[in-house]
């Protein structure tokens, strides 16, 4: 279908003129940035959020803040406004910075845009006991992209922590590609402290091979517009935990979008996403399990539960199951509501102030997601980050 030509926003104008000619430029020019009129982005109007002129980011100006996550003995890789800073590497891991590999990814416009960035390739063989921490630091008001490609060899084990630490009003666009080889396992944690002025899009493409296991949790505190999109392919007998927790106040926005394709039989997925929205904040959850005809014995559960704590707060959710196989166990659940008034009164009758009672119930609500983080130390750090974000 050929629609009316798009009138580019000031940002699109500059962005598209700077793109190297090729499929990506062509595709982006024809559609413009995704927004209200794009089904997959209808609740996260990126086009509107990026309307204003925005130049390429200059060098990171600030000093490095204290890390929101402090995994013991981790290999730390810094990316400051899209520029990598690589440390000396221990045995068992290979890291290289490679030339961009432009590819157009269907339904993933923004990820395509990040493919113009150089690729930080991380290869883990066997059991690499050292956790890898990628700290993406962003500041200013420009735009930059980064791309990470992690490969865990068959039967290898790895732990990947990622942070987005943003000050000011930049637009970082991150792409993480992960391939878990046969029988490999990965624990992944993504953390994003609040960034009220910033726009962030982080797309992750994960290929979970036969018998591989992924345990993923994300904690995000939102921004002017933040989207964490995870697109997975699960192969035979793979196991995935795909959790997320968000807490938004002020006018912050966070979009958690996941898409899982089942390319083999007997795959298992457990997804628990919970969110808290206050003031005029908005949470978005879009989840889709796409079970192909051949993906028999798929066992997949998706849940999204949100707490709306102010009149002006909102949550949009679209949990979807698209099932073409006949011997599967798939379910989804979705709720949104206020704090239980019975529980509130009970706690206050016992002496807790309204604020303390609210805090206790909010922490309890979130606790279900955080309890699934296996590492006790990391769990405690996530609990602290969650609690410190305003109620």
């Amino acid at each position, binding site marked *: 279908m050929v629609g009316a030509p798009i009138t580019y926003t000031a940002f699109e104008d500059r962005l598209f003129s700077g793109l190297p000619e090729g499929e990506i430029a062509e595709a982006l020019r024809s559609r413009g940035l995704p927004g209200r009129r794009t089904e997959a982005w209808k609740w996260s109007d990126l086009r509107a959020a990026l309307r204003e002129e925005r130049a390429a980011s200059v060098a990171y100006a600030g000093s490095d803040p204290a890390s929101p996550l402090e995994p013991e003995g981790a290999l730390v890789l810094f990316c400051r406004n899209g520029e990598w800073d690589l440390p000396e590497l221990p045995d068992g891991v290979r890291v290289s910075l490679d030339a961009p590999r432009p590819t157009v990814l269907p339904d993933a416009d923004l990820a395509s845009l990040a493919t113009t960035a150089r690729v930080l390739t991380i290869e883990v063989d066997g059991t690499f006991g050292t956790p890898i921490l990628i700290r993406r630091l962003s500041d200013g008001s420009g735009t930059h992209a980064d791309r990470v490609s992690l490969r865990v060899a068959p039967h290898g084990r790895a732990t990947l922590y990622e942070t987005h630490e943003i000050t000011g009003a930049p637009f970082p666009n991150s792409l993480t590609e992960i391939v878990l080889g046969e029988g490999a396992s990965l624990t992944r944690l993504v953390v994003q402290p609040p960034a009220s002025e910033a726009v962030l899009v982080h797309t992750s493409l994960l290929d979970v091979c036969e018998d591989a296991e992924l345990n993923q949790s994300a904690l995000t505190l939102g921004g002017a517009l933040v989207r964490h999109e995870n697109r997975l392919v699960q192969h035979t007998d793979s196991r995935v935990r795909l959790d997320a927790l968000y807490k938004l106040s002020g006018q912050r926005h966070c979009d958690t979008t996941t898409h899982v394709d089942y390319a083999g039989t007997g795959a298992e997925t457990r997804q628990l996403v919970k969110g808290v929205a206050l003031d005029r904040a908005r949470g978005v959850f879009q989840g889709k399990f796409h079970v192909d005809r051949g993906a028999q014995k798929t066992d997949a559960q998706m849940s999204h539960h949100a707490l709306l704590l102010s009149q002006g707060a909102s949550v949009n959710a679209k949990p979807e199951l698209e099932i073409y196989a006949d011997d599967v166990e798939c379910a989804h659940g979705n709720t949104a509501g206020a704090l*239980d*008034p*019975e*529980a509130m*009164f*009970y*706690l*206050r*009758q*016992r*002496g*807790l*102030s*309204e604020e*303390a*009672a609210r805090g*206790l*119930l909010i*922490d*309890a*609500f979130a*606790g*279900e997601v955080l309890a699934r983080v296996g590492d006790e130390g990391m769990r405690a750090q996530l609990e602290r980050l969650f609690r410190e974000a305003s109620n």
Partner: protein
Amino acid sequence: MLNIENLTVEIEGNPILDSLSLSVPAGEVHAIMGPNGSGKSTLSYTVAGRPGYEPVSGDVTLDGESLIGLEPDERAAKGVFLSFQSPVAIPGVATMNFLRTALNAQRAARGEDEVSSADFLKVFRTHAQTVGLTPDKLKRPFNDGFSGGEKKRMEMLQLALFQPRFAIMDETDSGLDIDALRMVGRVVNELRSPDRGFLVITHYQRLLEHVRPDRIHVLAGGRIVHSGGPELAAELEEGGYEQFTAEAA
């Protein structure tokens, strides 16, 4: 001690309590008995300050000080304790942490020192044993997976722990077996003292065999229609509420 004067409460526009007056002097245990829907739970919620149960008129005072307009936690700090008819379970809230925080919040509001973790644990364990809750239950989130009876034991544990000035027990006996009823009697009788009062709301005489009240009031149609001594319980058991509700009508 607790004085309720001409208390009128409407819930969603319907009058539930109708100019109710009641006085429980310090050191006494009063019981309220009455048919279903007579306003017993509304009375307990109004005294404890549950949002939505603000009186249209009348007053509730504790030691001469009005409770009306105070937040539920302010009333708790002044010594009002409500043993709930149907206590909630709160998954995700650690029992001991919650109760210690609550106790210290009350103490802070009264200008008293905080109770240390060690001291709290000692007291908590003693009370847990008294009410018959095993340590594995107390490690669970608050009331999580508890039976009705266990929840009532948890209410009694808190009564012993908070040592309130005035306790309202809203159908604490419902769903309890004979041993548990005896336990309730033990906890309450141990706490009876010249400067503490109790209001025991119940349907049945059997609890009052373990907690002997000084006065019994019959609540019907939102007001006290009859009052008497402890012997009234047997009369009610014998002749039902009708003898008094008919009198009120």
